[in-house]
């Protein structure tokens, strides 16, 4: 792998950039691998990367039905934070947060992780109570999260309207300074390049269509649109399509797939320094390095695999954005789109074994899994390599839906992303 650096960039500038090599190969699938990862999103690629890097498993493949990062990795609003409520969630999101901090250097790929701060607005006493609960819980876990007065919030984010005459005035805010955003596509590409360099085969335009099991019922391989691939270990990381893939292994999942929409405005000069989320009025917003306001809407109310939803959903979010930031009313929506998010009953992911030996699943990240990408890939790689969960993902079992040991972030706070 040719290292990226200012030096290599300048020397290529003199060479009219003729010398750059492919960032990853386009191999044909081999007949067999030690492990196969289904899904070439950020989580799948990170899993492969850490399998190769930390567990020495390099004879592995990532199978992606479309183009790398074309799923939710390529269509999310990129909010990264770790100030979750429950110890289980704190564990995995903070693990990811620590990896984010060094990811560009680790991958030798600038993923533009920008720790510009995530501000969550409180609009009523319930929000105050809930956010303080987070702030205190996070402190016990060593995770930064501060409570701000409206004035302090305004100082941190000057465009904020803290007038007490708003329909839902801002009565305070929780700020995670280490939170921020990253360049979503680069995350997929950086992991792909890193994994490829260690020998991982990344196979695009190849759909997993079925599973083969051995006499004992364990995984023997996957059927794909490019033929059968033998392997004893399969990790399914197919996000919105998890139910579809798992159905091919005969498993039903506690998942529903909903369209989740987002939009960007036309690009403007820097006006918005951080990430702002408001749960009470359903809005979240940041400004990309290119200058667009990146705005996330809610899910549509029905299951759909169409990556599109109704106009009323982004409108509802823009109502709230313009209530909080009336100066943005003259900004224009440039593009809106949707992704398909797989939602669990408790809004927490499922990471680990399945009833089928050799079949592992990592799913249910719903509307908020981008931030977990490095951590999720890291512990899932461990789980696949060792055949048992890493302590961090041990609570995120499928079995919790039977026992009732849910990790209900949504019920506790009703905050996503």
């Amino acid at each position, binding site marked *: 792998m040719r290292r990226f650096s200012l030096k290599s960039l300048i020397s290529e500038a003199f060479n009219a950039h003729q010398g750059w090599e492919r960032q990853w190969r386009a191999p044909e699938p081999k007949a067999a691998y030690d492990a196969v990862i289904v899904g070439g999103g950020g989580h799948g690629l990170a899993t492969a990367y850490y399998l190769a890097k930390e567990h020495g498993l390099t004879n592995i493949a990532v199978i992606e039905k479309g183009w790398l990062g074309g799923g939710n990795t390529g269509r999310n609003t990129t909010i990264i934070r770790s100030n979750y409520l429950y110890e289980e969630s704190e564990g995995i999101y903070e693990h990811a947060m620590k990896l984010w901090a060094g990811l560009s*250097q680790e991958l030798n790929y600038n993923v533009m992780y920008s720790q510009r701060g995530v501000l969550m607005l409180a609009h009523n006493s319930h929000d*105050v109570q809930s956010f303080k609960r987070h702030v205190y819980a996070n402190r016990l876990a060593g995770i930064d999260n501060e409570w701000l007065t409206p004035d302090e919030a305004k100082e941190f984010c000057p465009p904020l309207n803290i007038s007490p005459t708003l329909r839902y005035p801002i009565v305070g805010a929780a700020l995670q300074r280490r939170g921020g955003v990253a360049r979503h596509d680069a995350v997929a590409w950086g992991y792909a390049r890193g994994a490829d360099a260690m020998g991982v085969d990344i196979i695009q335009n190849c759909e997993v269509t079925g599973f083969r099991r051995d006499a004992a019922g364990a995984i023997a391989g996957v059927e794909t649109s490019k033929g059968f691939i033998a392997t004893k270990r399969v990790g399914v990381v197919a996000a919105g399509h998890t139910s579809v893939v798992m159905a091919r292994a005969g498993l039903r999942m506690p998942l529903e797939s909903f369209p989740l929409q987002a939009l960007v405005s036309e690009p403007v000069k820097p006006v918005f320094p951080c990430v702002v989320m408001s749960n009470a009025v359903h809005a979240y917003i940041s*400004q990309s390095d290119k200058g667009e306001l990146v705005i996330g809407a809610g899910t549509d109310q029905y299951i759909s695999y169409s990556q599109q939803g109704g106009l009323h959903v982004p*409108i509802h979010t823009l109502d709230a954005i*313009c*209530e909080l930031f009336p100066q943005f009313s003259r900004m224009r929506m440039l593009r809106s789109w949707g992704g398909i998010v797989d939602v669990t009953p408790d809004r927490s992911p499922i990471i680990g074994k399945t009833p089928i030996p050799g079949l592992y699943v990592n799913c249910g990240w719903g509307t908020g899994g981008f931030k977990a990408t490095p951590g999720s890939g890291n512990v899932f790689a461990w789980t696949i390599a060792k055949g048992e969960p890493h302590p961090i993902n041990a609570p995120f079992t499928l079995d919790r839906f039977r026992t009732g040991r849910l990790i209900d972030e949504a019920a506790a706070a009703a905050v996503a992303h």
Partner: protein
Amino acid sequence: MAGRNRLPRGGRVDRSKSVSIAFNGRTLAGFAGDTVASLLIAHDIHFVGRSFKYHRPRGFLSHGSDEPNALLSVDRGPGKIDPNNRATVAEAREGLVTHSQNHWPSLDFDVGAINDVLSPVFVAGFYYKTFMWPRRFWDSVYEPKIRAAAGLGRAPTEPDADRYANRHAHCDVLVVGAGPAGLAAALAASETGKRIFLADEQAEMGGTLLHDRTSMIDGKPAQDWVAEALAELRARGNVTLLPRTTAFGYYNHNHIALAERITDHLADAPAHMPRERLWQIRAAEVVLATGAHERPLVFADNDRPGILLAESVRAFINRYAVAPGRRIVFVTNGASAYAAALDAADAGLDVTLVDIRPEGDCGPELAALRAKGVTALTGHTVLAATGTRRVTGLAVAPVSPEGKIGARKILAADCVGMSGGWTPSVHLFSQSRGKLRFDPALDAFVPDQPVQATRSAGAANGRYDLSEILAEGFAAGSAAAGDSATRTFAATPTPTGFLPVRALPTDADPARIKAFIDFQNDVTAKDIHLAVREGFESVEHVKRYTTTGMATDQGKSSNMNALGLVAGILDKPLPTVGTTTFRPPYTPVTFGTLIGPSRDALFDPARKTPIHGWAEEQGARFEDVGLWKRAWYFPRGDEDMREAVARECAAVREHVGIFDASTLGKIEVVGPDAAEFMNRIYVNGWLKLEPGRCRYGLMLKEDGYILDDGVVARLAPDRFHVTTTTGGAPRVLAHMEDYLQTEWPELEVFLTSTTEQFAVIAVQGPKARDLIAPLVTGIDLANDAFPHMAVRTGFICGVPTRLFRVSFTGELGFEINVPADYGRAIWEAIFARGAAFGLTPYGTEAMHVLRAERGFVIIGQETDGTVTPDDLGLGGMIARTKPDFVGKRSLARPDLVAPGRKQLVGILADDPTLLLDEGAQIVADRDQPIPIHALGHVTSSYWSPACDRSIALALVESGRARIGSEVFVTTPSSFTKATVTAPSFFDAEGKRVHA
């Protein structure tokens, strides 16, 4: 002065009405009917902006909404400034103030232009390869610099001073686009008498015909035909014409969103008129007649100001009567540009035409042009443009069929019209999920099978000949209206010959020239090469790696050239490369239009009780609970919240208080099976509850966690008056209806929301009975006749009431339900009597304190969707003998019966003056290493006047077993020591309510 490039004759501008606008401080005159672009061109201004990345000088590329370059900031007055307006779309109107963008300090001298010099480094994706060292420099140095350099104009800083409107509409046929195809479609469709809408994004309807000087339709000049067609449509009562209206989104089930621009073009818009209106049209059928976009040609420095699309040159000359230059060179690979060249020559301009096609591939239009005395070079390529801030010429050279490039020569020019062919505007069709088909002859994707009730016609359908377009439009319109009429139109034939080209052949090193694909985002052909070289082979990857097609024109000018190039590099057929996804909006739409009237008071309904006005007059502070505004506390004089609440609490405990409980949800459950229904919904038993009695009820979700609670009164054997929490009211009714309709349809019960039928006045405190007694008739208020947890109907002040003897404060209390319109009058009547009793109005905060002193829970505060009845110590309420109720089975799940669950307890800080924070975490030992396991958290915390100290409720692991033990609670800066207690701090036996 109308500008030196204003042509003496012709055009559709109104020379009798002059308008002047300002551009970068210069005042310039033009005519009504000008766009900002045509007005600037009239004054020979082409250099109007800087590109996104390299800050290259940029001018106009097009004359319409596909414009990627000429974006201006427009100032229409205070609160009406916005960036990134297309000069080619913005209509000139008196007094309009415009500015160029993306430069510093000025358009002419822009520091950012250094980027163009550094461009060999700033190639596609360069930032992924660098700026990583040292690590912390990203946040502090690199990213701020990148952000400052990026972006186009400046975002508005003032709240928007305009208003916006919304309209839902239905029609039989919606025709989008009013060019020849759309007009013909609308004519045909409207003949059936059905409801027809015709929308076009431009100020005038007519499409390309508005700049067509020469075509004849049915013996008339095309523009006369347009005028007649529009007159005809206007005369028909069933047609709604929407000019300046862009169909921007095609959603499910023929739901089309359109943005109508109403006042931006008016100098003196009446104040009541909205700036823009969102139309949400549900159309039975849609005809898409959205035309086609001309493609730029790809050659070195093709972005210089003065280089336009050929058809746009034609439009500026014919429609706006301005000459984009005096010496114009047209470069083309097809026939359509010949019409532009002819029109330019007819306008008296110096014209040369360069056709890339070999002479033999050119059509008869070549001879016609030469006959006019125009020089036409065939078989020539363009090597480069010259000039920086304005094109000065083109370097052209003959190219042999084998691709050999001959000697170059410079054609001097102050304007270039280029035509690389046409791309049907399939955006809306594709948004409607229709599949596209690649047509090699057109070198373009055209609509294939529609998925929704939609059809395409005209250039949008790959049809370029005028008579064919008209006939196709007519047939489509008729079919959409359920008819099958056809018509032929006698129209001047349109020359349509064309030979696909990619980047033009050149003798320079293609890796070292800047031939632009995406003008706005500064994506050049070599960027596309680089992306593919690095493995970004999917067109979606190319888009994201290079940002081609991601600019504000969303690739209208660039996508086909990018695709063609990728296909060429990969040596794959173009259709296998595919397109990127077409997404709404077709052109950018203001947030204001999308949200319409949902601002200020109309953002969200603010629900207020009948007594709200009274509380307001008393100076109450309010808090939001769901959509409701509730009186929070009633400060007197300069009391702060704590003082006011302490006073209110004391008044209730010692005398009597009055509280507006109207927001509580209320549901009337009626029918012979009402009790059975209640039995299945609540954990409690209801069969034995006597009419006239009340019971505190608890309901679960099917997962076993608490959904809501409230007092329920049985009014009659078949009638219950259910109350719910304020926020839970809609949820609870929906939950009940769901089970009733889908699980137990056999039950004879009906549910009706009565939340707003009643105003509810809580009168609480030792003197409550004495206070209300004289006002009440028909009810014996004596303690034994009307005990705690009873309900009676009677009258208060002559108004019918449902009187509850209930208490959420721990005091003797009544909740007086009266029909809402009487609420305030009754309240005032009680209040008038109250002075003698020390009656004090109290708000939700005092109510919270009073109930917490007694240890009553609030759903949503003590609970969070993970709490069971037993967790709250309310397990005893569960009627264990009932075979089933919603949530019962879940309560038996392993984790719900496991030891160690969090349980409701009291927490008393060792320092009685210290008020714990709600949400504070509770730990066993403060001196543990991080991460510290939390035993639970504080759910409620108040200063308790009755206890004269702070009190708190909390959920704590195995809390009941910990009563009496010591814990630590987080404070903003540290921990504080506290003791676990039973969750009740006052009148633990609950005697006072029976007084």
